[in-house]
């Protein structure tokens, strides 16, 4: 492994994040830390993950939701200290790694079918 990879691996280990195994199409709840003056609180942003970019410390994921009839997308750095927790709410069944086509779809067409079999499998594994 080259020096850069080793460095990033070390930094990722130092960050000590417990990141669930999610991919594009899954519905996520992202718990983000928000600073207001001296106080810190947690805000939950819920939406569909439409892309994951794997790039070591620079890895990000994009979460899209419809807020007051307006499409909103947020790109989160995967290893950001500002992310308290990532919660996987629902597993989607999709055929693509990047769901940018969701941007032009609205309403019924913007649905993603739940992957029930996979959800069941993961639940069983969690039980074990």
């Amino acid at each position: 492994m080259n020096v850069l990879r080793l460095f990033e691996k070390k930094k990722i280990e130092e960050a000590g994040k417990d990141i669930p195994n999610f991919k594009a199409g899954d519905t996520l709840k992202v718990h983000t830390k928000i600073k207001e003056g001296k106080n810190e609180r947690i805000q939950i942003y819920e939406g569909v993950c439409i892309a994951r970019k794997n790039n070591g410390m620079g890895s990000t994921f994009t979460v899209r939701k419809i807020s007051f009839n307006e499409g909103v997308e947020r790109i989160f750095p995967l290893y950001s200290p500002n992310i308290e927790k990532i919660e996987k709410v629902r597993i989607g069944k999709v055929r693509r790694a990047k769901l940018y086509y969701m941007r032009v779809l609205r309403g019924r067409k913007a649905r993603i079918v739940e992957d029930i079999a996979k959800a069941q499998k993961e639940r069983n594994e969690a039980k074990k």
Partner: protein
Amino acid sequence: MRCGLIAKKIGMTRVFDENAQEVPVTLLKVENCCVATVRQADKDGYDAVCLTAGVQKAERLNKPQRAVIEKANLTAPQKMYEFRVSPDCVVPVGSELSVSHFVKDQLVDATAVTQGKGFAGGMKRWNFGGLRATHGISLSHRSIGSTGQQGMSKVFKGKKMPGQMGAKQMTIQNLVVHDMDVEQGLLMIKGAVPGHKNSWIRLKDAVKKPLSKDVPMPAGLKAAAQVKEVAKEAAAQEEAGAQE
């Protein structure tokens, strides 16, 4: 004026600072950075130290270089550069410099040979606008246009024209040392540094900004850093003992 460091460019990545902000950093590795020879004003006419960098087979060096390395009892280096120093900052021959030569948040100047772009046209090399896409322009959409005026019968010296771009020495001033890993010999410099990956970068204290008071004088030596760490550990152990 202290000497600098020679480092190898590893590549760019990003880290998070204490405010959870992303910081783009360039990783530089310092390896086998030792003093090979010292130039003295009374003998050579100027004060300088010659530093080594990298490791390679001794037979790949030429004879005069090998003589210098053998005299200083060092590992054969890949690169050697001289750094001008003031007489009080001369480092003894054979001592190895560490990344602790610089301190956190210090400003440094980075010198290296930039990435070569080859023979580039006016649009890429000088940000010229080029000619129009339509209205009768044919075969010269990326041309530089006029190079002078009527009646002068000449082109002024220094006129910006197509030519070799990059692959020449450049210094970027006032880069911030974001962090360092003394054990691994890694420096994290905020932002970009000239040169391609695996190229040799010369780092010096910023010439246009006052020097931080915390920097080691005359230089941050590897042995000294180790001694310091050992002392720290001993102090920590003593503290632990006292607490018990």
